[in-house]
């Protein structure tokens, strides 16, 4: 018995030490003069870690810009590694609501069905979903953008920089959003380099550094000398750097992460949509919509071209960019054939509306995809 008593005493001592050290962190919710009631809590769900050097980090940059803009008026909660299972989406969102969240913003396509259920169950909260197509009339909307514009521009860079005339594309899933990116990037490259071809490798995940790296390495082994990706991390850019090749990123300006390979990247400016929308929500004036931002709106753009890119390429990009910003530059202009030889856009025709573009189920002639 004495032995137990001794252990208990030691424990008690250790606990007291902890109490001693544990002072400082009190009143952390207090900050500022804003009273609790005026603070709107916003919860963000991310599919990966906010330090992934790509997709989630870019999402989180948007979140931080929102936080900065509203100052003490909003409180941000976020959860990383929220998988696309309904259980994961709902557990995290409900824990956020339990912590006072008034707005839940989910940022991965597969979070969609969980968000739909939540919007039904919590009708007094707002739900916003990036990249999905579901919404309702009262408290659930979605947002995305015409990424094909920025993809096309980055394709021009790749098309002019390649020497082997072979581009490599690390892609997530053969899903419409990804197909639009693949095709617009290729069309951009082809507009400046008629001989260019492209290989695509699907990793069947939105983000997985190891899978992305091995896909990138297999593309390099096929002779591709400019890589790009529709996947969450910076792995493809790093693999290209190791091989002495170039890479166009996605989501993030990674000029410091992979200075030897990084040319540019199509990027999102999430705050450009989120700030005005959250303002409306706080004022109670939000009406659910399916937002589709453009480069002209400032919702998306191209990261600054790095010093690896020659002046003539920069000039070409600027020229086309001006046309896109002016709104008279459709990306998908016929005649276009898919890689099975079928005509998908007739001569003199073009895919102009969002619905036309988002019914895309093909990959263009000149592109080889490996599933």
């Amino acid at each position, binding site marked *: 018995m004495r032995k*137990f008593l001794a252990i208990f005493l030691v424990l008690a001592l250790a606990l007291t030490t902890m109490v001693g050290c544990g002072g400082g962190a009190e009143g952390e919710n207090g900050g500022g003069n804003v009273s609790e009631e005026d603070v709107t809590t916003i919860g963000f769900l991310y599919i990966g870690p906010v330090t992934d050097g790509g997709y989630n980090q870019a999402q989180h940059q948007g979140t931080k810009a929102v936080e900065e803009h509203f100052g003490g008026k909003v409180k941000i909660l976020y959860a990383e590694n929220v998988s696309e*299972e309904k259980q994961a989406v709902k557990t995290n969102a409900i*824990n956020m609501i339990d912590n006072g969240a008034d707005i839940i913003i989910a940022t991965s396509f597969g979070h969609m069905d969980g968000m739909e259920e939540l919007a039904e169950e919590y009708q007094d909260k707002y739900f916003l979903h990036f990249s999905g197509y579901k919404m309702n009339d009262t408290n659930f909307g979605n947002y995305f953008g015409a990424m094909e514009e920025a993809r096309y521009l980055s394709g021009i860079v790749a098309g002019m920089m390649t020497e082997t005339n072979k581009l490599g594309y690390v892609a997530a899933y053969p899903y419409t959003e990804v197909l639009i990116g693949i095709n617009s990037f290729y069309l951009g490259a082809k507009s400046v380099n008629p001989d260019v071809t492209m290989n695509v490798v699907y990793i069947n995940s939105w983000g997985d550094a190891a899978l992305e790296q091995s896909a990138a390495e297999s593309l390099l082994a096929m002779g591709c000398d400019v890589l790009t990706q529709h996947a969450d991390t910076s792995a493809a850019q790093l693999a290209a750097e190791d091989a002495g090749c170039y890479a166009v990123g996605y989501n993030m300006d990674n000029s410091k992460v992979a200075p030897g390979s990084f040319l540019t990247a199509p990027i999102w400016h999430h705050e450009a949509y989120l700030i005005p929308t959250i303002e409306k929500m706080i004022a109670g004036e939000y009406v659910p919509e399916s937002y589709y931002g453009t480069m002209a709106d400032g919702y998306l753009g191209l990261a600054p071209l790095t010093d690896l890119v020659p002046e003539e390429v920069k000039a070409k990009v600027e020229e086309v960019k001006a046309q896109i910003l002016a709104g008279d530059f459709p990306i998908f202009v016929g005649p276009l054939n898919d890689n099975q030889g079928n005509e998908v856009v007739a001569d003199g025709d073009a895919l102009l509306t969002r619905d036309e573009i988002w019914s895309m189920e093909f990959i263009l002639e000149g592109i080889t995809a490996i599933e």
Partner: protein
Amino acid sequence: MNIISISKREDLPQKKEWLIRALAVALSIVCAGLVIRILGYNPLQVIPSMVSGAVGTEIRLQQTILKAIPLVVTSLGILVAFKMKFWNIGGEGQIIMGALGASYVALNIEGLPKFATLILMMIAAMILGGFWAFIPAFFKAKMGVNETIFTLMLNYIAIKFVTYLQYGPWKSPDSQGFPKVATFSNNAILPKLFGIHIGWIIALVLVVLVHLFINHTKKGYEITVVGESQETARYAGMNISQIIIVATLISGGLCGLTGMIQASAVEKTLSATLSGGYGFTAIITAWFARLNAIAVLFVCIAFAILLQGGAYIQISMQIPASVADMIQGIILFFVLGSEFFLQYRVNINRKRLNAKEVA
């Protein structure tokens, strides 16, 4: 003779047993607290908030119970096999196959009333889950093939098979190419009672049934005897092969039922990641409950509190997921470790120690 020797404890007084358990919990909290402190958080906020995050309000309690349901049902399945010392590491695969069976019914059979649809889904799930456990049981019973590796490997076959369906023949035509199985119709979704899907009633009923089965039926007794000693069972004239197969069918069937509950009530569709690791976690909970069905209920609730508490502090205190996982790991380490001291005695041979000093 060694300085330290380990022997099995025979008669530990109940009081001392609980004292050791309490000490383990206290030690784990102190240790977790120190780690939290080192990482720059305040343990006096983190640890209480973990508990209140799991049971503090009605919503949180619901979240905890939602996590406990699949754990309880799977643990019961694992328990039946482990009772017989049939090491079923294949819970994950059996859950997935169960979900597959339930989904087949949900997506293909129309026109039945809701009750009938749900019952049919359960039956399909239990048959497929049971079948997935039957394969290794058959080879174990007939040829003595090691079931640990066999059940483990079958997990991957089940997961990859469902992945194939999800990306191929079962891909929903409405998903714009995204690899997703269609969502179930309302008819195939378990109803709710008190805000939680009725999986909790199924789980409670199963706890009682499995308890009665193991302790008060002939088959249950036979399973225990086979587990204790196959020789004894053989002398007593029991049909060992048949007992092994019946027990694993029940084990796999229960795991399969978890798959049905998760597919129907939570995900409302089939996906390759639906098992969520419950098949492995249930091994810990079943073992920690000392293969006692009633204890399984409480252990699983405690475990679900850890899971929900961990998820909660990530949100409320904005602690990285890895820290919450580490706290769970530390607590498990101590609590599972204490079981060792409950069952074994560590003897330090003082005489020999003294003798050395003299020499």
